[in-house]
């Protein structure tokens, strides 16, 4: 169960991604939370400002409806939604510098909106 409202929500994937995001963004006042996709339906989560969603070869296409309108970053599978105004796509192995830069720009965009 995820009860608080994070700035950045990490769904699935390696815990290292969350660890790095926490180390970088929490000192700047952005809460970073991690949740499993299987737990999403039971969560009382309020919408985050950015979603970082790890996809995996064995998993089905991520449930994106719940976060409609929220900037999303998909990491992993090549057939996940293509990058557009609100969606970015990364495939592993990626550079953290690029991921963090993308999150920063999406957060700034969300702040401005």
């Amino acid at each position, binding site marked *: 169960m995820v009860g608080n409202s994070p700035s950045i929500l990490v769904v699935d994937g*390696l815990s290292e991604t969350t*660890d790095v995001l926490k180390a970088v963004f929490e000192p700047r006042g952005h809460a970073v939370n991690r949740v499993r996709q299987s737990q999403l339906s039971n969560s009382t989560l309020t919408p985050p400002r950015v979603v970082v969603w790890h996809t995996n*070869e064995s998993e089905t296409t991520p449930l994106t409806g719940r976060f409609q309108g929220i900037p999303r970053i998909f990491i992993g599978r090549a057939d996940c939604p293509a990058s557009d105004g609100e969606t970015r796509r990364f495939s592993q192995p990626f550079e953290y510098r690029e991921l963090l830069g993308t999150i920063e720009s999406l957060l700034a965009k969300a702040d401005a909106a």
Partner: protein
Amino acid sequence: MPKATLLVVQGADQGLRFELDGGAVTLGRGALNPICLRDDEVSRTHAQIRFDESAGGFVIGDRQSSNGTFVNGEAIQTRKLSNGDQIAVGTTAFLFQEAAVARPIRAADQLEVFVGDDVRERSSIISELSQEVGQQLLRDATSIIKASSTTQTLANLQVLYRITEAAVTPTLSLDQLLHRILELTIEVVGADRGCVLVNDPRTSQLTPQAFSHRRGFSPGSPMPVSRSIVDYVRKKGQGVRTSDAPHDQRFSQQSIMQAGIREAMCVPMQGRYELMGVLYLDITTPSDQVPRLGPEGHRFTEETLHLLAAIGRQTALAVENHRFQDAFLKAERLAAVGQTIAILSHHIKNILQGVRGGSYLIDMGLKQHDEDLIGRGWKIVEKNQDRIYHLVMDMLSYSAERKPALQVANVNDVVRDVCELMEPHAAECQVELTCQLSDQVPESAIDPEGIHRAVLNIVTNAIEAVEGATGGRVTVETSYDLPSDELVVLVRDNGPGIPAAQQAMLFNIFESTKGSRGTGLGLAVSQKVIREHGGDIFVESREGEGATFRLVLARLDEAAARAYAP
């Protein structure tokens, strides 16, 4: 030292392959047997196989087993094994395969293919036979029996049966199979020698693939093979018989004359789709020394040509099947290699991603002179070092190279080590890890390193199954079952449980339900290690009610461990 393999073709261990290097090897249910079987119908030490110089081959001997040892369905005490023999013990069946040994003399060195005059030589062929006639022999044995002597017909049918049997035996290499077919054919038709020329699909040339001669016959110089006869058979798709070779223009060449060929037969080996080669037999023995001459005063009769045509067809199908089988195996191997590379690349990529995360934080910490950030980065790097270590160790454990190093130890000590090692990780995941060790557990000959890995993998899985859940608990227990003389390690969690459909695939290699976190190696390794100890892993789980993994090991005493030591 000669080599052979035993392939388990039936039973719980189906698919396992055991190498025999000539030394004495025991097989049985006991964990100390080099060939350890998961079969309750098999005695602890059931039988022994070794290479016997005096017998000239591998010999199997029953070791006073309760249910007996069988070779090709016959109960035996000792028996020399032949390639393709089926050995049955309990409910397990093996296929015995001798390693293909390169023949000291190549078929090509035993043959001399020559080109003779072409046009007029057909006059010397006293009989031709369409290949359909040979196939008819296979289809309609009754009509043939009526038309010929029963004894010879039965011998013919018997050889066809034996050839079919050899052809479907998956153990023989193509060379071995063709050689075997030649031996059987020469024996039944009374030829002196024979050869098989196989069509090379790359060059479309017929190349010598097998040569054989009857027992007691000294082949001397290379067997002359008439190119014109071969080409004729190949072109017309018809079998030919000549019983007057010395006056046959085709055989007018010096080499044939010197070879003293009196009779010859050649039939096409017609496969399903193409000609696979030809089968060629001859006789050089003078007619007054040939027993059982036919009504025309020849050894090779119309009936033998019929038979040879049928054998040619059988041989062609066998060659074709071998090629299909080879292609299929190659494709399977390539697919397996590709899948393994893809899966390992995926895991290595994940680890690399983790290392990059840690390195990024360290770099950032160094630039900002932030020791906390460096510490957090280093922690991530270390975690991924561990992941590489475990991935490599699991791969090594799963590989056939690693053999269990047995020593007398207490399973409790190993389980305690695992729990102590996993305690910090469990705490980090907010999981309560409890270790309950029974003081009744006796010492046993185990491979502590292997058991450590087996238990560690299962405990790691259990912790991950309950990670993040409220009140997540993992309990590790040991016990000793006196009646069965078995050691038991229980790993129990109160996680979401394992769906029944997934339970059947749990121990399959590269089968993981943990997404990017799982390698699909852990449980496969655990199962392999426990089975190497003559035990097994059992799973009990229902969805929503957690899971229990029960690792059962046969207790082995010190003497047994010493006996097993290399």
